[in-house]
């Protein structure tokens, strides 16, 4: 994992507010990835960027009807296919 499979794909951190997408991969540490999965963030999950903090993050997203804030560092490791 790690490489962008197509030019269209973006890391979560690079997405704009209001943009929607599907998770492609999460390349965080074992613990962080597991925790995201326990909150329902797995590949193929649809998400929407609700807002971003000052200086590119943290990112607040909507996933499975719930709101989730993810630090800038971790958001840079989540690859998304925008739709």
């Amino acid at each position, binding site marked *: 994992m790690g490489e962008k499979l197509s030019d269209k794909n973006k890391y979560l951190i690079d997405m704009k507010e209001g943009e929607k997408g599907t998770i492609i991969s999460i390349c965080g540490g074992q613990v962080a990835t597991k925790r995201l999965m326990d909150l329902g963030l797995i590949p193929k999950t649809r998400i929407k960027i609700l807002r971003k903090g000052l200086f590119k993050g943290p990112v607040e997203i909507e996933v*499975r009807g719930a709101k989730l804030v993810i630090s800038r560092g971790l958001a840079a490791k989540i690859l998304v296919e925008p739709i």
Partner: protein
Amino acid sequence: MIEKKKLTIALAGQANVGKSVIFNHLTGLHQHIGNWPGKTIEKAEGTLFYKGHTIDVLDLPGISSLSTYSIEEIISREFIAIQRPDAVVNVVDGTVLERDLIFTLQLLELERPTVIALNMVNLLKKKGIEINFQRLEKILQVPVIPVEAIYGKGITEILEAVIRLAKTEKPFKPLKFGKEVEARIEKLIQSLKDAEVPYAKRWLAIKLLEKDKEVEKLVKEKYSKKILEEAKKLQKELEVIYKHDSSFVIASERCLLASRIAKKVIKITEPKKISFAERLDSITSHKILGYFVMILILGTMFLSVFKFGDWLSSVLENIFASWPEAWEEVFGSSLLSSLAWAAAESLVALTEIALPYILPFYFILFLLEDCGYLARIAFLVDNLMHKLGVHGKACIPLILGFGCNVPACLSCRIMETQRERFITGFLVTFVPCSATTVIIMGLVGKFLGIYWALSLYVFAFLIIFILGIIASKILPGEPVELIMSVPDYKFPHLKTVLSQTWFRLKEFLFIAAPLVIISGVIIKGFYLAGLLEPIANYLSPITVQFLGLPAITGVLLIFGILRKELVLVMLSVLFGTSNFAQVLSPVQILTLTLVSMLYIPCIATIAALWKEFGWTRALGITAFKIIFAILVAGFISKILLIFW
């Protein structure tokens, strides 16, 4: 069948689902907050009586999953599996059912009788969500009770369901994962057939495939090592099929299962108009506006707490003013009576901090937490906090620290790992608390001007920032990234806020009182025996030669260990004047204030550090602070003397 009259139920659920509101409804003030044996994790229990049943309710720590992520999670699942409560009440936020279902599925894997308390059903309509309760009940095969916790609706129904469940032990039918995964779970269950462990076999099998370290250890110790090899083989097979780590495969399966269930029971129609809560959110979490709102809210909070505190503490002071004389009249003026008064005085002083400052501080903070605002602050300051090696949630202890360092240290528990907790706790002790503020304002503010006082605050922030960067570099371990569920804004539930405030206040007194009283008596004893001045003279190479202060400040600093504001009180007692400009030069005033700000945490804070981090770390922080204060204050006084 004999009806069981004594039942135990455990409340389980993720953060912000209204678990504590339900707990409060169930137990009222009959609750007891202690610690899990040998852990610094809180254990909240309570008892209630319902239709001839005595029901013990245990509030499991708020967790986001049952994988081995934190101590809280291990405690929770061990309790469910080993203590075998008669029922587990899973509190679920109905407005985010799909997310919460993942947790519910993990809970059901433990195979204890479970009741689902589907909370916040009153908000469903407004959010355009429709849930088919009967269908959910059928799929999960457990009772689903619609609950409106803040109005107390559905609480008795939960109890009825629990009692019904306890009467009929129903065979458990697990929800199935995908075929490939199921086949491997089945294989492991067969191999685990004779294992004598308190957990459900299927749960063990799932956790082995999930590479759960705790379960691997348990099975190895209690059963056989061979099973781990088999599990490894099966994990590999899954990894070949799915091209992902097998722990992720299981987690994904669970997510998929949750999605499938959600699709069957939830119908969502986008609400046409943006709700008030959403509008509020877009202002309070705004990139720029959000910071103004934060400063406004926190500023108002600090000002009103300090105003209220000032007023109440002067009222209390008036009440207690005549007590020393009354004490002497009753008990005479013997040595013993003086020492006993020192003990009583410590308690009085503790009350004078707890009621005027800590009580309103806790109240407002819990109010902000309950309505959902603290999560927004964590969002706003996350980037900044990462510079200090911690994430956004660390701002909560730091904010509390301005009121009093003790509750601030205790609240470091909200951080996920030991490393995060320690860094936050360490930094908290550098936040100027209300007592330090008294010194800063009473010395520097009064005699050198408000700008000098404010610059001391800026200096304190700078120190916290620099030490945070250094601590996060030095301490081993990876920084944890913020992953935080954000609750919707809601109207705070006053009863829950009040009971939280009350239990925290009690905790503060219990932790602080013993050490405060003991050290109060000891220092008074030293004082009466005339030992303080010799000690101060011993300290004079530091106080006089290095810091350039009068020798007698050594005595002040010893008293300051008890409570920081005593530095100021004793200063006027020992010099016989409250016009300190007569007895101290401007540089001395600044130096003394700096030392008081930075040196040793007060004894109550040391007690809190001790409780949270053990005595080596508590003493380590204390020693560091003393040396650090002397060096910084000495250095600055030398620089100031060049210019002044």
